[in-house]
């Protein structure tokens, strides 16, 4: 039977595997191949240059700055998003309990759950338009308008959120957090609801307050979901292309002012399509791929714990 089994399995797998190889694996390999050339993108002429593109990358100040920005996002985006989402999910599911009445969410939890999910249904294009209005550098912007009304800033020198070298990256980070919290809130809510209610009640009877319940019971039981969220958010932090390219100033694909909003993905695209340094861009792509892979592996490895069964 053995010799018949394999043709049978291969018969089913051949089409999807071939498609995957053609559309995913081959482009990866091609990218790696192009990264060893001086391909300019438009022409079909290219010369093999060895690892010169990679050595150039390491001395490229802009790329190093973009990398630093991605690392900053990598540190702050998962931490802030997960903490906020966990906090909200906890409050919405088990946090409300003044006096007696057992374990329940705060009042109006059902409404909040829907409202918090809104950002998730907005496309990035809409997000960009929305935050262009929020971050406008005159009194018409939401933030500046409010700050002016409160008299907290000088009308002659309003804060230029997306044009200030010190603020641009954090403004982008804020959008990423704002749009991400809702999704992870729903993810953590679902995970929390799978924890038997009696466990919270037992904690309540054992005298644990909200904070103790959260850290000693809820968080350890949610660890699997937090780990998953961490990997997703780390990958998102390595990207951030769409928001930076649409919102920040710069010649092509944003990244300004003066590279202070630059991320690896935007610098890659600028090299690829604008500067005509496609081979160099491919080398960047390869570096980003490996960084992301390594990060995911580390995130999964470091946070791995014993599986919890109820």
């Amino acid at each position, binding site marked *: 039977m053995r010799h018949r089994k394999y043709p049978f399995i291969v018969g089913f797998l051949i089409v999807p595997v071939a498609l995957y190889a053609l559309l995913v694996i081959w482009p990866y390999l091609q990218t790696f191949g192009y990264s060893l050339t001086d391909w300019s993108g438009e022409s079909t002429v290219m010369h093999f240059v060895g690892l010169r593109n990679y050595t150039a990358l390491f001395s490229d100040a802009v790329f190093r700055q973009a990398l630093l920005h991605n690392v900053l996002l990598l540190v702050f985006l998962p931490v802030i998003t997960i903490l906020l989402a966990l906090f909200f999910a906890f409050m919405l599911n088990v946090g409300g*309990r003044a*006096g*007696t*009445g*057992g*374990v329940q969410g705060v009042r109006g939890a059902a409404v909040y759950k829907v409202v918090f999910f809104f950002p998730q249904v907005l496309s990035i294009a809409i997000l960009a338009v929305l935050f262009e209005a929020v971050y406008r550098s005159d009194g018409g912007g939401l933030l500046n308008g409010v700050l002016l009304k409160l008299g907290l800033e000088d009308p002659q020198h309003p804060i230029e959120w997306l044009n200030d070298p010190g603020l641009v990256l954090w403004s982008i980070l804020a959008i990423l957090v704002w749009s991400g919290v809702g999704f992870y809130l729903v993810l953590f809510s679902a995970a929390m609801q799978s924890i*038997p209610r*009696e*466990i919270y*009640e*037992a*904690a*309540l*009877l*054992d*005298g*644990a*307050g909200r904070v*103790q319940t959260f850290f*000693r*019971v809820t968080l*350890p*039981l949610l660890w699997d979901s937090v780990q998953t969220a961490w990997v997703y958010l780390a990958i998102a932090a390595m990207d951030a292309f769409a928001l930076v390219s649409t919102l920040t100033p710069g010649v092509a694909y944003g990244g300004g002012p003066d590279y202070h909003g630059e991320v690896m993905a935007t610098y890659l695209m600028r090299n690829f399509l604008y500067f005509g340094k496609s081979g160099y861009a491919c080398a960047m792509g390869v570096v980003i791929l490996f960084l992301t892979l390594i990060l995911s592996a580390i995130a999964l490895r470091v946070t791995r714990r*014993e599986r*919890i*069964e*109820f």
Partner: protein
Amino acid sequence: MATVTFDKATRIYPGTDRAAVDKLDIEIADGEFLVLVGPSGCGKSTSLRMLAGLEDVDDGAIRIGDRDVTHLPPKDRDIAMVFQNYALYPHMTVADNMGFALKIAGVNKTEIRTRVEEAAKILDLTEYLGRKPKALSGGQRQRVAMGRAIVREPQVFLMDEPLSNLDAKLRVQTRTQIAGLQRRLGTTTVYVTHDQVEAMTMGDRVAVLKDGLLQQVDSPRNMYDRPANLFVAGFIGSPAMNLVEVPITDGGVKFGNSIVPVNREAIAAAAEKGDRTVTVGVRPEHFDIANGEAKALAKDEPAGVAVTVNVVEELGADGYVYGTAEIGGEQKDIVVRVGGRQVPMKGEVLHVVPRAGETHVFSTSSGERLSD
């Protein structure tokens, strides 16, 4: 150690009109083991959760000792609870599970360890202290849940069907262990179960609830011998008491071919309310098999009720006969206990007479007990 008082405690779930627990009034003495029993949906678990502070009290009050705890949060009530599914913290070891409350209370580590080890010794859990709950059997988890309650040395233990997830044999074994442990610790305990055998065997007193209303609170013996109404009579005892509706006659109640003596005033009171019948209850073991010996009402007929045997359950020591009898022109199901060595055959006819002094008479309309 403390008493527990339910003072007309009422719980009405939002969106419903009927109270889940309606003016519950029970006084539980210090060190007493009280069992709340009833069919599902009778409000027994709700009552327990009201005492625990996991459920609001809409009206009335609950007191532990002299303290009014009606609106206190659970942690301030000094109680410990054992849940039906045990609710152990899956990420903590047995020792951490048992010591969690003390850790929260800020007790120092050495004392926590001493108390946990002490409780583990009582419950035979010493070798499992380092394990996680998932590596324990059902019975061991149940003991950990008990241990978590014991370690706290609370004023009151609350147990919500703690044995229903165990298999039949372990349940019987654990039943005696819990009852024994409670006697030894002398902690006031409120225990919820739907199993009347558990209720009868474990409790100092048993409280029967139905539809949120307290039916009777009494010792298991009295509950069995003098059920206060039709519901309790039918609920307590296995197999259930035979309840048969019979017409009222002069001097008592006619049951088949014999007379059941009943207090005259009670009968008069029932008749006054317009009742033409009363309900007679006889436990299966209180039927005597009469083979023409007992005094019959009509001379030409054999005494008692003729029961046609349908099914016989042989339990070894004794047997239960499930049969039908014609009483007052209607076919009634009757259960009779017979000796294990004198089991009748299917299809036979038995003449049974209720034993004098072991019959119960209830008003058919109100269900109240009429005989003393």
